[in-house]
């Protein structure tokens, strides 16, 4: 192995390990996203519903989560919760942390979507005599959710990139695989570069696809 320049055969030999890491990264992103969207929607609705105490708590929770680093939240769930009787596997910890963290963002995204609905929609529903819960579920939420899909999709891409943090709690996702391969061969150039390239390929193509779909959606309207 020459120590300067790029060693193709070594780079290619890392691929199986990196792909298994990428698979884990994508799975974590997938479950993290589902968690984030569901919790986010609940948080958003609880916050907007103006329930005494509860809405204030939701609002505080969103601010707290958004105001602290994901890494420290990850450590908290990983190191502290077991002591409180909640023991999770490392991978479940990672998914939970991603889900909780991005739920705070999803809540804000949903809120923006709801705020953006034209006042005329509310007024029209009122004049039609619809009960208020029905206005929410039948008129406002469907429109708001569709409207924020591109933003949520971009959030998922951001989450995908941030799953690299899970490497710090022993999860063998893409970055951890790259580091482990590199440490075995005492050579980080190829594996870490390939890790960056793989992240780039996935997130760049996903971002392009979203932009394309958004464009088509805009034309249809």
């Amino acid at each position, binding site marked *: 192995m020459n*120590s*300067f320049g790029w060693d193709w055969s070594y780079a290619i030999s890392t691929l199986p390990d990196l792909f298994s890491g990428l698979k884990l990264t994508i799975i974590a992103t997938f479950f993290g996203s589902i968690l984030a969207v569901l919790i986010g929607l609940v948080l958003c609705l609880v916050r*907007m*519903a*103006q329930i005494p105490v509860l809405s204030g708590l939701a609002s505080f929770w969103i*601010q*707290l989560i*958004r*105001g*602290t*680093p*994901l*890494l*420290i*939240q990850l*450590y*908290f769930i990983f*190191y*502290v919760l077991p*002591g*409180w009787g909640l023991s999770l596997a490392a991978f479940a910890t990672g998914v939970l942390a991603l889900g909780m963290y991005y739920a705070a963002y999803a809540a804000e995204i949903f809120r923006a979507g*709801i*705020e*953006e*609905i034209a*006042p005329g929609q*509310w*007024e029209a529903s*009122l004049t039609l005599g619809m009960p*208020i819960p029905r*206005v*929410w579920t039948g008129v*406002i939420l469907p429109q708001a959710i569709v409207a924020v899909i591109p933003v949520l999709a971009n959030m998922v891409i951001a989450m995908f*990139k*941030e*799953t*690299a*943090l899970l*490497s*710090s709690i022993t999860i063998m996702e893409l*970055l951890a695989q*790259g*580091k482990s391969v*590199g440490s075995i061969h005492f*050579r*980080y*150039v190829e594996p*870490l*570069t390939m*890790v*960056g*390239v793989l*992240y*780039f390929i996935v*997130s*760049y193509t996903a*971002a392009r696809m979203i932009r394309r779909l958004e464009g088509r959606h805009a034309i249809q309207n």
Partner: protein
Amino acid sequence: MDDFAAFQAYLPFILKGIPVTLLVAFLAMCVAIPVAFILALGRMSPSRSLNMPAGFVIELFRGSSSLVQLFWVFYVLPFFGLELPPLAAGVFVLGVNSGSYMSEIIRAGLNAVPAGQREAALALGFSPQYRFFRIILPQALPLMIPPFSNSMITMLKFTSLVSLVTIQDLTFRANMVASSMGDSSSIYILVILVYFGLSLLLALLGRFLEAIVNKRAGRSISLFGSANPSRIPPWALGRSG
């Protein structure tokens, strides 16, 4: 030593991480802002030899994970003979990565200034520098400040990554102490609250900047309370109205 005694003993050690965290955030911001302006202006330039490289840097840094970029600079660059001290590596990656994201804020702000302003400035024979610094920028700044203050908070959180390349910031110190304690909950809760408090301070600083810039642009806003009132009718939220 019981955990509470340990907590007390370690407290000063952990709190010494605050200036480190703030220093990293500050230095990285000092890198990010000029980088963001350069990238935004490069991207907006009609010349291909400017907008192509700017676009490349932006896509490169936004396209992959920031932690991967940090490790790459930390572990790979030394292979090519460029060994940066951890602080420099951290500040560089955080700064350029955030700068890439912030360039979009700047671009959006500049683009939001009506085209007629540029045309009027051209028609009056102003120099390019005057047009940018005295006509376009003062109108774009108030639009950039709110997302910019968000970026400051993002940067603060972002700095926790440098703990993974041996810089002794808040996160690093918390982890180090926690690993030697039986129940580390008090340590992590403390550090979470410190980060949260710093975020709130930065948010306040952002509102402050917003108020200043808006005042210069002839508008006034309050330091507290939301800038734009909700468009949702009160009755929809269960209140009579």
